[in-house]
């Protein structure tokens, strides 16, 4: 589509001549999707429509009790120390950001009066600053007023290295300044096309300056309010027992009309996913459970109970098999999988392509993930505008065998293929998790049919995902030939997701394996594309660059994407939760209600 035509259309929408819905429909017809079309409009100067929230109740309170069941119990209540989604959700009950992501990937204003755009002067044309207008009259739970000082303080608190806040990556490369009591300006060092990162979502929660001012830096973990949160949220704190129980009650001074619906709130932690599903769907003891990592057939059986249902939200989470570019079995200077080595088997592109042909995604989806997964050939699966249509996947043992034969890998006496004395034997590791072990079994079967010998290894999750320098079993050490796990997309923008695999971020002994590029994959074209995309303000060009990145990964077979995983929750039939694939489960808690 020509740029000129596009701009004419955008202007048309701005002036009201072209119906916004028609514009989006046309964009969809061309293969772009709603959130992308919306972003196009945003930078083109049209305000991002706030999704009409289908919130029906007409008065505050009266909804009784809301009981949630998280099968991993939250352990702390400060959003800027929250590493996992369970703790982020627990903090979000009480604290709020300026805006959060809704179901369609649009921004939902919470503490902000409106979403910044070029039209209302919120976004600068050079993409280097964002001006947020705060809602007037918002009060903290202790009655003190919420002002721009709290936003500036939150930024100072998080960026202080002595605080060791886990959200520091979001706030590092920007400055926050107060314009007046109800206006805050965020200034970026470089043009930042994806500006909706700071003060949005889980790590965007604002802290009260008057309670945390004495607990910055070194003393941050001693603050009493870490365990007794005072926020602006829909529910006020009552009680907290780590890993067990959080209790809260309705906030009568909440800043949104007719909200919240429920009078009391309870979040219980502990147990496992299957019994949590049971408690919602079969016995109806609780209203909602999060993160149902359960085989679909179990969920289907439970749903016959009739008191609840499973709900799904599509995001960009990808479960994949990563191929090691280096050799895990050769030690150089005390380091295995060193950048100085090349993998003897997997550096052959024919082998990589053959492996990709041997993963039966359909069977994995049917047998294990069911409704919770979608087959895909792409590493990047969302938002729709960034999804490549140039890739494809296939499962064929014959084709894989043929490919290997042609590349010189002939079956030896024991049936395992070999070439130049090297046997095609792989070590395949993943974390301990029912669905993952089953996937390994399916993949191993296909590999063996094609003459590849596979050894399976599973490591307990708390070890596999640890950053312990001395532990050889972590995913970052990658002392195996192939490994499988999931990387979630925590925001509806691919920048962070794709930046990981830039060659300058390879994980090595020198950087204590903290580098994000754990497959140690190096591709100059990919590096160039990522660098260009980071500063590209034209949304169409930017999307094209990220699609190119995805295609490069597919051409090189750096990864074998297995399943585009969908978020799964269990909800009582009468409950109306707001679940988005781009946000945490409780990110829009104020909009939850029950419908009889």
């Amino acid at each position, binding site marked *: 589509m020509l740029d000129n035509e596009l701009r004419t259309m955008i202007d048309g929408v701005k002036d009201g001549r072209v119906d916004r819905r028609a514009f989006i429909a046309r964009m969809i017809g061309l293969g772009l999707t709603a959130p992308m079309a919306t972003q196009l409009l945003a930078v083109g100067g049209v305000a991002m429509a706030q999704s009409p929230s289908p919130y029906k109740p007409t008065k505050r309170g009266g909804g009784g009790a809301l009981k949630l*069941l998280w099968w991993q*119990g939250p*352990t*702390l209540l400060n959003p800027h*120390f929250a*590493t*996992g989604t369970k703790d982020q959700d627990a903090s979000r009950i009480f604290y709020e950001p300026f805006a959060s992501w809704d179901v369609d990937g649009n921004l939902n204003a919470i503490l902000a009066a409106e979403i910044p755009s070029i039209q209302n002067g919120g976004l600068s044309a050079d993409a280097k600053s964002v001006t947020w207008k705060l809602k007037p009259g918002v009060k903290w739970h202790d009655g003190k007023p919420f002002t721009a000082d709290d936003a500036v303080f939150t930024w100072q608190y998080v960026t202080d*290295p002595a605080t*060791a*806040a*886990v*959200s*520091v*990556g*979001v706030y*590092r490369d920007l400055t926050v300044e107060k314009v007046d009591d109800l206006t805050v300006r965020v200034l970026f060092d470089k043009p930042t096309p994806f500006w909706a990162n700071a003060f949005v979502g889980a790590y965007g929660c604002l802290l009260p300056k008057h309670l945390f001012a004495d607990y910055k830096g070194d003393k941050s*973990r001693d603050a009493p309010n870490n*365990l007794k949160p005072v926020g602006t949220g829909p529910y006020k704190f009552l*009680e907290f*027992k*780590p*890993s*067990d*129980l959080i*209790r809260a009650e309705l906030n009568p001074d909440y800043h949104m009309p007719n909200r919240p619906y429920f009078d009391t709130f*309870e979040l*219980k932690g*502990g*147990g496992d996913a299957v*019994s949590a599903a*049971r*408690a919602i769907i*079969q*016995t109806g*003891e*609780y209203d909602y459970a999060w993160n149902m990592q359960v085989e679909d057939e179990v969920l289907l059986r439970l749903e016959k*109970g009739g008191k609840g249902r499973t709900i799904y939200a599509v995001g960009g989470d990808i479960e994949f098999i990563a191929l090691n570019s280096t050799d895990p079995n050769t030690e150089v200077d005390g380091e295995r999988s060193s950048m100085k080595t090349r993998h003897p088997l997997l550096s052959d592109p024919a082998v990589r392509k053959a492996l990709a042909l041997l993963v039966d995604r359909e069977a994995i989806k049917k047998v294990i993930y069911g409704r919770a997964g979608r087959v895909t050939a792409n590493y990047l699966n969302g938002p729709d505008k960034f999804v490549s249509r140039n890739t494809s996947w296939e499962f064929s043992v014959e084709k894989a065998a043929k490919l290997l034969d042609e590349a010189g890998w002939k079956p030896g006496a024991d049936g395992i293929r070999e070439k130049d004395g090297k046997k095609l034997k792989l070590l395949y590791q993943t974390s301990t998790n029912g669905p993952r072990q089953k996937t390994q079994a399916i993949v191993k079967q296909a590999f063996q049919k094609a003459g590849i010998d596979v050894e399976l290894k599973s490591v307990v*999750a*708390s*070890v596999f*995902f*640890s*950053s*312990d320098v001395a*532990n050889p*079993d*972590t*995913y*970052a050490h990658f002392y195996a030939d192939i490994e499988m*796990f999931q*990387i979630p997309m*925590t925001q509806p923008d691919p920048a*962070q*997701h794709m*930046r*990981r695999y830039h060659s300058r971020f390879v994980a090595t002994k020198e*950087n*204590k394996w*903290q580098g*994000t590029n754990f497959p140690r994959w190096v591709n100059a074209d990919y590096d160039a594309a990522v660098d260009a995309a980071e500063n590209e303000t034209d949304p169409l060009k930017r999307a094209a660059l990220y699609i190119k990145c995805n295609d490069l990964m597919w051409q090189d077979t750096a990864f074998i994407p297995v399943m585009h995983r969908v978020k799964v929750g269990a909800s009582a039939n009468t409950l109306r939760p707001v679940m988005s694939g781009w946000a945490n489960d409780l990110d829009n808690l104020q909009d939850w209600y029950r419908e009889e």
Partner: protein
Amino acid sequence: MSQYILRRLLIAIPSLLGISLVLFVVLSLAPGDPFSELATNPNVPPEVRLALRAKFGLDDPIYLRYLHWLVAMAQGDWGFSFASRMNVDTLILQRLPTTLYVIGSSQLLALLIAIPVGVYAATRPYSVFDQVANTLAFIGFSLPTFFTGILFILIFSVKLDWLPFVYTTDIKATGTAWLGEQIRQAIMPVMVLGLFQAASMTRFVRSAVLDVIRLDYVTTARSKGLGQARVIVRHVMRNAMIPVVTLIALQIPAVFGGAIVTEQIFRIPGIGSLLISSILANDTPVVMAVTFVFACLVVLFNLIADLLYGWLDPRISLR
């Protein structure tokens, strides 16, 4: 007697120190990281992870960390959890009442079942009652608690919908309604645990009574004309219960350790589930504190069991 007690207590101190040292070394050698969730989080730069590790002293050598811990414990500071930054003693005290209530009740239930059944079975050995009781006891301790727990849930919660299966420490009723709710939610876990323990106790009580019932003084008592009930209760049980009482004394520390599997199934926030979740999260201070407390209780109750045995049975002398 007092000399014996003093001597035992003095021996206990180095053994407890040795236990704590072994515990600490094992925990620090174990792989895993309290900050594992930071690893796949793209938002968290590596310096933050390293700074957190240094802050919590995770990079100090083992002997330094052990000394820090020992000194702090001696001063009554049990440390704080890495995960939630809450004091460990607060965490334990939060969970103590629930543990005592559920696990303690199950021990009581086990006793209430085991003693009458065991005694009665022993008085009529190889009768129908005895055979049935034995079979049920065998089945009882062969079936693991996670199996019976889920079975109970399926029957009583899902099919019949009589009982809730998620244990909550926060019941909003008052008075008898509160008591009723507490009992309702505790029935299943208490039954699961209690029946399991009752099974093994029944066998033990039965053999203890059988040992005593064939002795001459029992025959004398019967020939004096005393009724069966009086003979059993006043003569047999007093001697048969000696080994049983010491067994109970040795099992009491297990009450505090909690019943990990049952707590997991029913989501009971007891000390057992605290232990498991801290181990999985590599939350060393909590694990050290709980296991050390457990070790102290075991040593203490061993001493009490020895004293009780010496007091109840005059044939034993403590030296």
